[in-house]
């Protein structure tokens, strides 16, 4: 796979967006550059034949993270952040120079390491691909994600639930409430027509996950992003989500996965060792619940934290 013009352009774009995201004076401008970096990197993943990652990057990397950053910048830049942060305390010149030298050294070491070892070593490719065929899951990434290294994914779902708990703790325990903003009708129309398509796409991704690019994370992220957009447009009546229900929904993904992991142990097999006949069924079930849970988490993370602190006072105990 030799270097094409597109690759060079893409790489240049990536570096340029990254540099300006860090260097730009105005906070909003740097966040916009970061979001464009996210989109370019989604393209890069496709060039590197990693469709699963491209999907996740687009939905989470550029979408959810971008939304979170914009919301945070909105709150912090409006001057209610302590003056020191806004004035971007000038780091002392020496720290700046030292940092640059250290970063340069890091880059040199990394580059030298990459150049001195053959990139095209076989590594685990063959083993993983044959393993996936044995197990009967067409999409090898899903096979690795949910079977060979299922334990990683279990902990990763725990990370997501932990993030929500952290955000809730920081809003001192107020339950996740879906807030809404007024918006102009044209955007509402567009979003209204998009919503069912997003729902359908998410459902498809879960189903197709085992055989083609897709899976719990991608569909959950997509669904979550959809809910965020709906929320932003005020399309969701400010439904007073009963705290117990929202907590259960958030924890459902992890609890389901833990149940699927512990069931084999009860049946005398190893942790996370699905029974051969039920493998696809269990994986699909787990993926479904996981997708729902991730969607709630992504939406919850954004909507819960997007409630500006003063409006959040009501929730404070």
């Amino acid at each position, binding site marked *: 796979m030799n270097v094409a013009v597109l690759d060079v352009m893409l790489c240049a774009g990536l570096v340029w967006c990254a540099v300006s995201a860090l260097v730009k004076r105005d906070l909003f401008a740097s966040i916009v550059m970061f979001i464009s970096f996210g989109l370019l990197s989604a393209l890069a993943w496709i060039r590197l034949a990693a469709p699963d990652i491209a999907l996740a990057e687009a939905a989470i990397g550029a979408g959810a993270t971008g939304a979170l950053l914009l919301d945070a910048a909105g709150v912090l830049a409006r001057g209610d952040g302590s003056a020191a942060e806004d004035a971007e305390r000038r780091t002392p010149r020496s720290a700046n120079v030292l940092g640059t030298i250290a970063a340069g050294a890091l880059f040199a*070491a*990394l580059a*030298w*390491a*990459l150049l*001195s*070892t053959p*990139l095209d*070593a*076989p*590594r*685990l490719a063959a*083993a*993983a691909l044959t*393993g996936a065929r044995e197990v009967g899951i067409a999409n090898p990434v899903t096979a690795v994600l949910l*079977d*060979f*290294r*299922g*334990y*990683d994914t*279990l*902990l*990763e779902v*725990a*990370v997501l*639930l*932990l*993030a929500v*708990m*952290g955000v*809730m*703790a*920081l809003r*001192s*325990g107020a339950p996740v409430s879906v807030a809404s903003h007024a918006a102009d009708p044209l955007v509402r129309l567009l979003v209204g027509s998009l919503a069912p398509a997003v729902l359908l796409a998410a459902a498809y991704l879960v189903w197709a996950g085992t055989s083609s690019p897709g899976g719990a994370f991608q569909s959950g992220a997509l669904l979550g992003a959809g809910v965020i957009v709906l929320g932003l447009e005020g399309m969701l009546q400010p439904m007073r989500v009963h*705290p*117990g229900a929202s*907590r*259960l929904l*958030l*924890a459902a993904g*992890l*609890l389901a996965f*833990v149940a699927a*992991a*512990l069931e084999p*142990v009860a049946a*005398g*097999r*190893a*942790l*996370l*060792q*699905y029974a051969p006949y039920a493998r696809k069924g269990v994986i699909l079930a787990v993926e479904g619940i996981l997708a729902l849970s991730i969607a709630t988490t992504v939406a919850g993370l954004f909507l819960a934290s997007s409630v500006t602190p003063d409006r959040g006072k009501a929730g404070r*105990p």
Partner: protein
Amino acid sequence: MAEPGAFAPQLLGLAIVVPLAAGAVSFALGRARAMAAALLGAAAAVALAAAVAWSVATGGAVALDIGSWVPPLGIRLAADGLSALFLVLAAIVGAAVSVDAALASRPGADVADRWLFWPLWLFLWSAVNGLFLTADVFNAYVCLELIGFSAVALVASKGSKAALDAALSYLFASVLGAMTYLVGVGLVYLASGTLALDALDSAVHGSASARIGLGLMLAGLVLKTALFPAHFWLPTAHSSAPPQVSAALSGVVVKSSYLLAVRLLVAATGAGSGPGLRLTLAALGAVAIVWGSAMALASQRLKLMIAYSTVAQVGYLFVMLPLLEERAATVGLAIALHALSHGMAKAAMFLAAGDIADAAGTDRFDALAGVGRERPVAALSLGLAGVTMLGLPPSGSFAAKWLVVQSSLASGQWWIAAVVVGGGLLAALYVFRALASLLAKPDRSEARTPKPRTAWAALPLAAVSATLLLAGPAISRLMAATSLAGR
């Protein structure tokens, strides 16, 4: 089960997943019943840790291939003597922290009315167990992140401005450490084609990117373990967090990334770059001991002093490393003894400091006169924990100091013995300054309104750590199932 040994591997998985599940259930149950579910989960975690330690003591090292996929494709959990001992440390400190938080949860206490403490705390415990037991470098990354987030959220749960500032700097330091570690994992995977820890050292031979990758991984772990000069985030975080959280952080969490660093160092000996790496880490450790003790002496607040003492005590764990090569068994035992006794003593000190700060309203030294009389249990716990800080007999850290002095005399590296012995004297300065201010007669003896909370959880912790020498036979039996010599 056919014979007890067969179920042993499953214990490893349960020791991680059960607290995790308990945390999720506790979160789902919400404010009213979160504590009850969490305490149940804590009890289960303690029992599982004891079961793992028992099976390692009787049957030697235990390993579990998750989903029965053999590494490098699958993830392996492994428990040799050292990780079993660290698991037991996490269980003991975990039990004490849970009891203290439960005791503190009566109305009016600062931390436990925020019920999210319980699920966050169980996630932290499960992640620490995960890091002790994992034999897969990428899985260790996920555990490191889990620990990072739960610790940051717990530190921030205090709500004070100081706690939030500390939590933010802790978070970014933790993220930088984890990302550096991740890049290291990427490079090592590039070079060796495997993520399994024990297959690492043979695969790492000679290739430049593997050595750089390993270096980056160690750099990340050094940042997470707060070894000097990467310790800047620890004092503020550990001193402004709620007492139970500081006890868990200083007692156990700091040691989890250290254990992984030791495993990597053992693997690095294969790559031939071991000795140089260990000497630099040991030098940093020596500076950490001096710097930590000096700053502890200079601090005006009890909790800040205890936090800086952690920076110094982490230095001890690294200063022993150059001896690991030729005398792996003895130094391995020294590491286990020091980590266990310091972990328990430090947790006891923070719990006691929490109680003392309650009684005096603040933990500034000049306001603590006479509190020793009001809170005898807390003062006694602080004293007993001081025995361990100084490395005086019959504490576990004395046993560790004894083994290190022996080994360094035998292997001719005298400076390590000098640093370890000198460190004990430095610790004496700040420990007894704290004790003296507690025992001092109050100049004005107006009756303070003592809040109804006593550091009952701190006393057994401090007592066990101060007499850990007596548990020597059991610890050395467990360490017999450990091989830290590079292959």
